[in-house]
């Protein structure tokens, strides 16, 4: 959207001078902050990393501190798709389907080596990274990552969410990105 880019330009003007733009950007910031602290994950846990995700939910790490403890197994309600574990070629279409069903704004974390790059499983049946089917925002290395690393990945997404413009996802770049994955 051309409007949103205009807003961003206005934001560079000195504070308080340009009324509407100032308001719009502060508003965007507020919503960004709101989104940041309310990222509901869709735990797409297929294997080992899912078990570490359980540990992340557990008392010792407590993902709820970030406001993300409500797992939304329905893609409609989720904000981040946390793909944890190996995605086989048989599973690939399912991941894509789930991603397509999610409502904007949506983010994707590839947790662990398998989801990010296939990891140790360089085999005929394993997808070599989910970025072949859906656009990935944050990669978390490790096999499986420690819960600290998963939280780290979540915080990276939080940074994205806080700094993203409200309508960035209508932008032509984003549309092109989706189109390159053949996602409507």
């Amino acid at each position, binding site marked *: 959207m051309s409007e949103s880019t205009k807003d961003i330009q206005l934001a560079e003007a000195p504070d308080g001078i340009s009324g509407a733009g100032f308001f719009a950007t502060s508003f965007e910031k507020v919503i960004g902050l709101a989104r940041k602290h309310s990222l509901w994950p869709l735990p797409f846990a297929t294997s080992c990393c899912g078990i570490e995700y359980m540990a992340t939910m557990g008392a010792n790490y407590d993902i709820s501190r970030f406001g993300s403890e409500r797992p939304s197994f329905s893609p409609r309600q989720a904000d981040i798709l946390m793909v944890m574990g190996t995605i086989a*070629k*048989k599973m690939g279409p399912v991941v894509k389907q789930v991603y397509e069903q999610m409502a904007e704004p949506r983010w994707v974390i590839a947790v662990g080596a398998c989801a990010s790059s*296939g990891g140790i499983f*360089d*085999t005929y049946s394993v997808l070599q990274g989910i970025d*072949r089917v859906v656009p990935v925002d944050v990669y978390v290395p490790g096999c499986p990552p420690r819960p600290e690393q998963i939280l780290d990945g979540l915080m990276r997404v939080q940074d994205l969410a806080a700094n993203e413009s409200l309508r960035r996802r209508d932008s032509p770049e984003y549309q092109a990105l989706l189109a390159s994955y053949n996602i409507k």
Partner: protein
Amino acid sequence: MELTNENVLGKIIAQFGEDNITNAVNPDGIMTFDTNRQTIHELIKYLRDDEELQISFLTTMCGIHYPEQKDKELCMMYQLHSLRHNYRLRIKVYFPISDPVMPTLTDIYATANWMEREAYDFYGIIFTGHPNLIRILNVEDMEYHPMLKQYPLEDQTREDKVNTFFGR
């Protein structure tokens, strides 16, 4: 009766004849012998139903591929266990890859169902009489049977792999 390799083998040979039970060895404490496609179904049924043996637990089965052995390229390994006597037994059947047909065991053991589907999926062994012989682990439209030795392990779509390095 205490089951030993000798008396079990004797009993089986007495039942099925020397021709059908060959090559009995004992590689790791588990007696292993070969048999053929005609006998295997009856043999396993006999082992299960025999009052004395009670070898009535199908532990596992798997296919093996020996590309070098002429007309014995494929092998089906059955491992049985008598829980009562704590006695294990391994049976192998060799057959040519041009004719990968085996009788099904699904009528004897319920567990054979998926194991046979797995063997079909991996090696293309066709089990006659299987109620639902389709691929189990791989996608249905896969064109080859991946565990056969001639097929590569690697996913050919991988991009970040550098083959220049020594090693494998």
